[in-house]
């Protein structure tokens, strides 16, 4: 079972990398804990992330969480954040944005929500 799980996880990461390369995305840093947001702290990315947040995320996640969890206090790793936005969450209302947002745009949203404690 354990080796199966490991195998699956490797496959998953490889598929994600392929997807990002295919999309012409900026290369993420592959650390032991997974992908790390390459634009964290970048002001242009934060500004772009706020725009995307307002247009796509605010309807549920509001200023500090609401219909969806407070993303400004997220404890998800960068990789888990990216994968949750791309694939959605089974059994919850979170839709899959993989066909609507590029990984770059998700990184920008991630950079934005990690730059402040609320939307305004």
């Amino acid at each position, binding site marked *: 079972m354990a080796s199966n799980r490991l195998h699956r996880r490797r496959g998953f990461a490889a598929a994600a990398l392929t997807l990002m390369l295919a999309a012409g995305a900026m290369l993420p840093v592959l650390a032991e804990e997974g992908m790390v947001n390459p634009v964290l702290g970048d002001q242009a990315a934060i500004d772009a992330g706020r725009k995307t947040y*307002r*247009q*796509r995320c*605010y*309807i*549920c996640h*509001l*200023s500090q969480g*609401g*219909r*969806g969890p407070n993303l400004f206090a997220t404890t998800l790793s960068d990789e888990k954040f990216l994968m949750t936005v791309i694939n959605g969450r089974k059994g919850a*209302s979170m*839709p899959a944005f993989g066909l*609507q947002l590029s990984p770059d745009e998700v990184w920008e949203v991630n950079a934005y929500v990690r730059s402040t404690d609320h*939307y305004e």
Partner: protein
Amino acid sequence: MLCCGPVNCGLAIQGDHVFVGTLDARLVALNIKDGSVAWEQKLEDWQKAYTSTGAPLVVGDLVVSGIGGAEYGVRGFVQAFKAATGEPVWKTFVIPGPGEPGNDTWPGDTWKTGGASTWQTGAYDAETKTLLWGTGNPGPWNSDLRKGDNKWSCSLVAMDVETGKIKWAFQYTPNDAWDYDGNNAPTLLDLTIDGKPRKVAVQSNRNGFLYVLDRKAGEFIFATPTIEGINWTTGLDPTTGRPAVTEAMRPVSGGAKVETVIPGFEGGTNWFPIAANPEKGIVYLNTNDWAMSLKAWKPEDVVYNAGQVYMGVDYQMYRHKEHTGFLKAFDVANKKWLWELPSALPMFAGVLATKGGLLFTGDQLGFFQAVDAQTGKPLWRFQTGSGINASPITYELDGVQYVAILSGLGGDPGFYFSGPKGGMLWVFAVDGKVADTTSFNPTIIETALPIYGKQ
């Protein structure tokens, strides 16, 4: 994309078919015996955020469906199909197109993405063969980007069931800026009001008012607030029902945050059906007393992109009183409120009235309860284990009367409350006994745990 959760409000049955709408905007007829697909029709393009969450309505040999998606720039419509074959019969846009009466209430091309979804099932007046279908908010929420009445958003639209032709319409909230959907279907009653026999449609609205309309021509008879402190309007015109808007409560694109607006956009009475005693002319309704803030984005930031959110505002709901939810009784013929039963949390369940003088409804605390229709006193309650966001039904089978309710957090309440998600159907018999709560009657999966020697 769905504004308000992956919900479904129900299905319809006729003959050998079960009709159900899908989140990807199809209407599907299933064969009742084996669940196979008898026919299906695309209502609209789900990638433009059209969706079907409402229950279809069967009238004669037609099955009728509305559509959702007003937060995403859809154009609302109602469509009828042959129930037997799925053949389209008519489709009526509730936002008039060019050349149709009312199109001039939309500047430029705003009618194309004006919302006015038809996400709840309408009512049917068999006597006049008329569908009475409620419509939702116009889009985007910024009312100054679509100056005009924006017909027929936030309205009740009367359509000939055979042709779909609009006979009349009544607009509850012209140029809505507050998401005051008018989708909740009206309850049809025959009453004497002010000494005159009237055939009325009674509708409890998100905008905080309970409307009484003459259903033959859509004439406004009167309206009454269902909650205290409504402040988006100073009142309704006594002849036409048109609201006098408090402009300070209307957010302006790029302007300051407006707060607190009463009621908040959830209403008033949201989707949950009201009940009536048709002989006494009394209606029983759940309504909510809460508030919101709205801040409208700059015009240049409000851009339509197919399939994306097209709201243009920041919004926030607020509780502002000890009690948010109320079950209330209103004597329509005598224009008099009779009693109210408060609840700390907002109500999101329909009401069922029985001829024997009982009301059934449920609350977010998970209690399914029976209430004395005359006094409003609770008579019995049962903890269902999750919030109740559905409508009770009652039916008789083999001489026993049953009451059934779905319990589970979903839709908008699922956004406001945490707790067990539930997802249970509870059925009670009038003379039933509550089962031992420690047993849950597990059914053995025979293939997994067969009796030894009998496999």
